[in-house]
């Protein structure tokens, strides 16, 4: 049985947060969907709150410290990513974007990603389509069609299980993408494909 790694990025700030709650629901649904398709999964959660100072330091010094490097490696080395942010001021949170900003160019190219967001009301739900999806399109990630939004009212359960159905549909889409591809495509090694110096001299690289 193939074992996939699933990285879960949660930008929730309170403990516990509804963002992490949604992330956990999506994670459990994705693991279940992979099992249905005959594959196992290990889950690694990156709580961005724990890296808030690491991120600020990385902007100032120009390099991620050891703790942040480990978090980045978790995400860039995973077979798939679940990315969940709270909505702040009409977009993903600054903390969420800060993490995206320290990823190397190409780190998420071709990576299957499930997008999700939380907010106080459903009026913010299009943040997923107007902010999150263009960001990941720029990163050349492969986002699954269903992005999952949860407002406070969705946790009341009065919608006849609509949130759960969206979670299961998105998880199924992510599992479909993941099972169709080889395991753990690591980002390109910059030292592995340095052109020969003769090519550099000829201006061909």
């Amino acid at each position, binding site marked *: 049985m193939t074992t996939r790694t699933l990285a879960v990025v949660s930008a929730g700030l309170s403990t516990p947060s509804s963002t992490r709650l949604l992330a956990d629901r999506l994670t459990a649904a994705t693991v279940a969907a992979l099992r249905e398709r005959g594959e196992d999964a290990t889950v690694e959660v990156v709580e961005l709150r724990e890296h808030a100072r690491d991120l*600020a330091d990385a902007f*100032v*010094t120009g*390099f991620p*410290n050891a703790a942040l490097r480990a978090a980045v490696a978790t995400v860039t080395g995973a077979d798939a990513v679940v990315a969940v942010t709270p909505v702040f001021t009409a977009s993903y949170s600054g903390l969420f974007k800060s993490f995206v900003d320290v990823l190397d160019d190409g780190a998420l190219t071709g990576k299957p990603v499930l997008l999700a967001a939380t907010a106080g009301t459903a009026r913010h739900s299009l943040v997923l389509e107007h902010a999150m999806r263009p960001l990941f399109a720029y990163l050349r990630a492969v986002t699954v069609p269903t992005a999952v939004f949860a407002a406070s009212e969705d946790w009341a359960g009065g919608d006849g299980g609509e949130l759960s159905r969206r979670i299961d549909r998105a998880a199924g889409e992510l599992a479909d993408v993941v099972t169709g591809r080889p395991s753990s495509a690591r980002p390109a090694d*910059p030292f592995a494909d340095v*052109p020969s*110096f003769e090519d*550099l001299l000829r*201006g061909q690289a």
Partner: protein
Amino acid sequence: MQFGVFSVSDLTTDPTTGRTPSEAERIQAIVRIAEKAEEVGLDVFALGEHHNPPFFSSSPTTTLAYVAARTSRLQLSTATTLITTNDPVKIAEDYAMLQHLAGGRVDLMMGRGNTGPVYPWFGQDIREGIPLAVENYALLRRLWTEDVVDWSGRYRTPLQGFTSTPRPLDGVPPFVWHGSIRSPQIAEQAAYYGDGFFSNHIFWPKEHTQRMVEFYRKRYEHHGHGSADQAIVGLGGQVFVRRNSQDAVREFRPYFDNAPVYGHGPSLEEFSRETPLTVGSPQQVIERTLGFRDYVGDYQRQLFLIDHAGLPLKTVLEQLDLLGEEVVPVLRKEFAALKPAHVPDAPTHASLVAARATTPEEVSA
């Protein structure tokens, strides 16, 4: 092994007094620092090149020629010479001239420069940084090794029947190092020519240095200049030293906290853990520096950054006293005892002239 200091030539406000040195003061201070480096027994003084405030060193050969006249033994170098935005013809002329005036006590470290606007100010484009470094350096080598050059390329006007003067001293061009924090193409360039590779080794974690040096060594061997452990490696480093470790930390902290490059971010303790920065007693600096060898192998040149972030001249000169009296003599002895006989020293003018005398065909090739 060579030991020395390098300066980025910044004019920074001293955060403990609020006082900013004038350009005039700082320029005189840099000359004093270079003289002092020789007085305390260090081997190398290297100066940066910048074309924007708050830096003063736009014309390193002027400064280095003046230092050459006031010293007798000190090796003069750069940190770095902008191979991208300088005309390689002017580099060939300026540094051959300096080499004559300094009696051969000159080498250079090539760098690309990372200040975006400097490129257009000199008619270039930062996105062309690597191809510029490749083409300009290839031309520079020809200008130093061939008496008459016919050349055409992408980045400067063609040359027909051009002779760069003065010709290098004794027909031997200055030794060249190439510096880069994380571009493997530059390590490849250094390896291809059998030149030295210098790792900044200040602002980034040691893993970057380790990887670049490992790659350079492997490619040096591939290109047939010798075994990987014979490649010529230099490292930067940043230290602040006082006899008592707590005094060093207490005195340096405000400079660290407000430093232009990394200030207002991690604590001094965190940054010391993440990067090669060492703030402490002579013994702590000795131990940390000896540890560099564990991840880059036996290397040829160690330069320390000691005069940035607004540190006053008096403090910098005290740093040089401590380095010269208590740190470097021990490092010299310890590194020498560890280095195998087949690992060469950093090339000097004298060693390059001697090498040419024994194997003329190799040097002229």
